[in-house]
């Protein structure tokens, strides 16, 4: 009896191995092509072993194309957005956790619903709103900065400017981050704060001395997910940016791919690999938070 069961168990284990190997190959194969193509001196659109190894494609990304600039722009806008998300969601999440007000529940439901809105549906109105804001800030800044107007607007403009992209990217990540932080603070006992209140600490002091140190793991999770999502976003920079100085990696990649009759797959693969690496690093850190946050911060 035990023999049969063990034999059967062995067969199941073998089946498990076969299944896992097949699924893993399915999952990894496209990455293998991309990695090989990026160092192949004679690159083709299909998977093949490199004729000879070269790093020319990577050199080209940085030397001939504006790779450094694209990377720096992506990193700058996405990190800024992530930082904003962590601060804003940290404060908001705390408020949502501690409040007993009537608006709390509708608000939490509402931001869950925001996550289901298709982004293409909001694009045109969003563009119009940003444009109004852009014209507003332009009117204020033009007399102040005179001849430097153009690049001041590239910094603080809402259309074709860093500020606009950062704020829009950050807003998109807020709902999930607020939920993560709210659930996180629910798990932080109120004793610490109450002790601090008894000591006469103000709200600001309470936040700085007690809550920020306690909240770091939650902030890490919120920040990582915000970073990954903003890093992968391609529609917003596509619509919002035009100046070559502001281009980010996904747009550089998309444009290189659309060059009619001039597609250079080696360059594309190198560019895609460079773009992929920060996302993989962030994901490997975020993996442990996946279960808690997948359901919108609700314990499944």
């Amino acid at each position, binding site marked *: 009896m035990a023999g049969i069961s063990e034999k059967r168990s062995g067969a199941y284990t073998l089946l498990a191995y076969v299944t896992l190997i097949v699924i893993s190959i399915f999952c990894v194969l496209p990455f293998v092509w991309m990695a090989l193509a990026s160092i192949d001196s004679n690159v083709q659109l299909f998977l093949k072993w490199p004729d000879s190894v070269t790093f020319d494609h990577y050199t080209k990304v940085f030397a001939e194309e504006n790779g450094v600039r694209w990377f720096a722009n992506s990193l*700058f806008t996405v990190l*800024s957005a992530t*930082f904003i998300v962590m601060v804003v969601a940290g404060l908001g999440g705390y408020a949502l956790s501690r409040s007993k007000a009537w608006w709390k529940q509708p608000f939490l439901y509402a931001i869950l619903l925001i996550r289901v809105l298709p982004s293409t549906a909001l694009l045109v109105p969003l*563009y*119009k709103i940003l*444009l109004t804001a*852009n*014209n507003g800030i332009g009117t204020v800044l033009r007399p102040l900065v005179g*001849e*430097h107007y*153009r*690049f*001041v607007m*590239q*910094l603080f403009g809402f*259309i*074709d400017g*860093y500020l606009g992209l950062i704020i829009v990217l950050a807003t998109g990540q807020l709902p999930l981050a607020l939920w993560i932080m709210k659930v996180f603070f629910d798990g932080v006992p109120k004793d610490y704060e109450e002790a601090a209140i008894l000591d006469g600490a103000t709200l600001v002091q309470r936040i700085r001395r007690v809550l920020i140190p306690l909240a770091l793991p939650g902030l890490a999770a919120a920040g990582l997910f915000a970073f990954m999502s903003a890093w992968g976003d391609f529609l917003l920079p*596509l*619509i919002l940016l*035009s*100046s*070559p*100085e502001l281009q980010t990696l996904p747009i550089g990649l*998309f*444009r290189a791919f*659309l*060059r*009619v*009759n*001039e597609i250079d797959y080696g360059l594309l693969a190198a560019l895609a690999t460079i773009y992929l690496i920060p996302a993989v690093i962030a994901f490997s850190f975020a993996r442990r938070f996946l279960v808690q946050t997948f359901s919108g911060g609700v314990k499944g």
Partner: protein
Amino acid sequence: MNKLVAGGLAAIALSLLAGTANAESLRVALHGQAGIDAFTPTAERIEKNLGIDVEIVEYPAPDKDYMTKLLTELAAGNGPDLFSIPSAADVADMVAAGYLAPVGAELAAWPEYADFVDVAKQLAVSPDGETYVAPYILGIQQIYFRRDVLEKAGISTEQPKDWADLLARAKEIKEKTGSFGLLFPAGVSWGGGAFDEGFSHLIIGSSTPQLVTDDGKFDLTSQGVRDVFQFYKDLIDADLMPVDPLLGPEPWVIPKYEMFPSGELAATTCGSWCYIFDWGRESRNPIPDVTNVVGTWADPGQNGGEFVLANLGAPWAVNAKAANLELAKKALLEAGSVENQIETAARIGNIPASNAVQRDPRFQALTELVPIQAAANHGTYLKQATGMSVVSEGVARATEALLRKETDAAGAQQILVDHVRQTLGDEAVK
């Protein structure tokens, strides 16, 4: 942390400062590496002659993505100062939307404009009688065929007399060589090409050669339109045209850059640029000795006649809301200059719009293009009207249905009429 952010901002501000010397700058939208390379000397001339900075902005490459970006920005009022419009069919609508500054007076006062071929000048005039674009190159399109493939199979390379003759030639190619006999761009993913590079070739030789009536309405229910769709249908049903690649993204890549060079496709509509850009010295997959191996036929008419289809190649226009309108208009004339015409012709293979190039040795060196430039003086063209881009999209949808074998010629015509009627309203259609 705040210091860090402020520091980063300051560093970026400095790096942006470093690139600017002149106070005024002009923003020019372009797409595609070839277009940017061709424009670079002109940009330098504008900077030198007008004492301003030229900032070239690379927009997404395929025409459709370029237009999306350009129109989004123009609608928002933050478009580039000077830009080219890939498909002339879009001009009338952009005029109606108020995006383009009138430039007729400037062109009339410009001495060089007298040398431009009449077709180019006529094509530049909008339905309201004003001119909003500077023509500089022309797309002169004909049917290009593989002379070597036809001769080897013993098929006539004579100019086809009429549509029936053209269709018979395509059938003969299929029977004797197994290659596809004739391609007219069609379907949605080719964008404006289904109209500009396909449908137009046939409609100008049909019994109703214009789509626009005298009062500016579209006449789409005509027998000519029906016959054109029937011609497509005959090509598709007899399997003379490569249909599968046309249904995918980047539909031009396989037929034009792979099948035609390899001989799997023996004839296709194309412009003069094909000799240089698609299959010639600027191509990735060139055909050796292209001017001898590849011959051209004019478009035959339905019942005879020969037509050389002319349209404006990516004309230049000035943003009506340009920061400095006068400056942008001066730059426009530089963009329309004979120098830019020749440099672009050399890069992309279009035909200069000015007859002055006939006296220029740099153009004479482009031997493939010289005879075509002379032929441009008796080119035929389609009248433009507001809503032309909608007709263009309707033709793309109608031919898509034909490609998918979902409808017949009457059905395709109905798709076109319905699309235009729904989009522009009943009053726009005759």
